[in-house]
C-alpha cells in the first residue's frame, strides 16, 4: 500500500486508517517529563508517544505539520478568552486546520518528540514559562522509575538528568 496516494485531499482520520494497516508500530525510546507551572503541587507528568503515531511520524505522508495544530490551539485559546471556557465550542463553527492540512514528510524520532511537545503539552509549559525551575525534560525510557509506589510524589530532578521522588 502506498501512503503517498493519500497525501492530499483526504481527511487526516482516513490517512490514519491506511497508516494503521500499512505501518508496524514503533515504541519510542524517549519520554517527556513535565510539571504544570500553574500547579507545582501536582506530581510530574510523563508523556509517552503512541507507537502507531510514531510509525506515521517516521514514515511521513500521514501527519500534518505541527503548525496546523498550533493554529488550532490559537483558535481554541481565543474562544476560551472570549467566552471564559471551552463550553459550547464546536469546530463546525470554526475552521480547523489540522484535519485537512497537507501531510508533511518523514521526521526523525527526535523531531517527532519535539512535534509532540508542541502538540500535546500545554504552551504554558514549553513556551510561556519563564521561571528558573526546570519543568520539562526529554529523557530515555530507562530514566523513568519502574517502581510506582510513590508515583504521586514524583518531581523533576533539578540537578541530574533523571526523575527523583520527593518522598
Amino acid at each position, binding site marked *: 500500500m502506498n501512503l503517498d496516494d493519500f497525501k492530499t485531499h483526504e481527511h487526516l482520520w482516513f490517512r490514519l486508517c491506511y497508516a494503521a494497516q500499512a505501518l508496524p508500530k514503533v515504541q519510542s525510546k524517549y519520554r517527556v517529563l513535565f510539571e504544570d507551572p500553574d500547579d507545582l503541587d501536582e506530581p510530574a507528568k510523563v*508523556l*509517552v508517544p*503512541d507507537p*502507531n503515531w510514531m510509525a506515521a511520524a517516521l514514515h511521513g505522508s500521514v501527519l500534518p505539520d505541527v503548525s496546523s495544530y498550533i493554529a488550532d490551539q490559537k483558535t*481554541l485559546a481565543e474562544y476560551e478568552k472570549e467566552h471564559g471556557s471551552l*463550553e459550547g465550542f464546536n469546530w463546525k463553527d470554526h475552521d*480547523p486546520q*489540522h484535519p485537512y492540512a497537507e501531510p508533511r514528510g518523514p521526521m526523525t524520532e527526535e523531531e517527532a518528540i519535539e512535534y509532540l511537545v508542541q502538540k*500535546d503539552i500545554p504552551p504554558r509549559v514549553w513556551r510561556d514559562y519563564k521561571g528558573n525551575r526546570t519543568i520539562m525534560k526529554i529523557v530515555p525510557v530507562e530514566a523513568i522509575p519502574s517502581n510506582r509506589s510513590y*508515583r504521586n510524589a514524583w518531581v523533576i530532578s533539578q540537578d541530574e538528568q533523571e526523575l527523583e521522588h520527593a518522598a
Partner: protein
Amino acid sequence: MSTLEVSNISDGTTSVPAGYVVNGSAKAWVNGQDDATVLDSFNISSSTDNGVGTYQYNYTSSFSSSSYSSQSEARVGSSGAHTANTQSNVAGSLIIRCYKVSTNSADDRENMVAVQGDLA
C-alpha cells in the same frame, strides 16, 4: 489497490448506507498500561501518565467538540484497580481515572478506552 465505491451495504436482507458504517466506527481507541505505555491504539498521538491511576489520551485527529461518547474500563492490577471513569474531555483529548471500587485512585494493569463521535 482498488477502491469499492458504494452508497449502501447489504447482506441480502438489510441495507444500510456506507456512511453509517464509517461514521459508526470508533473514531479513537486505546489499550494502555499503568505507566501510560500504549500497547495498541487508533487516532492517539500520545498518552500522559498524570499520576496514580490518571491518564490523558491525546487525539491525532480531534473531535468536533467535547460532546462525544467515551467508554473506559480497567483491568485489575497489582494495586487492585478495576474500574475506570472519564474524568474530563475536550475535543482534542480525554482524561480517565482508574479506581479501586469504593477507594481512591489506583494504578491498573491495563486500561481500555473507545470513543465515538463526530470529527473536526
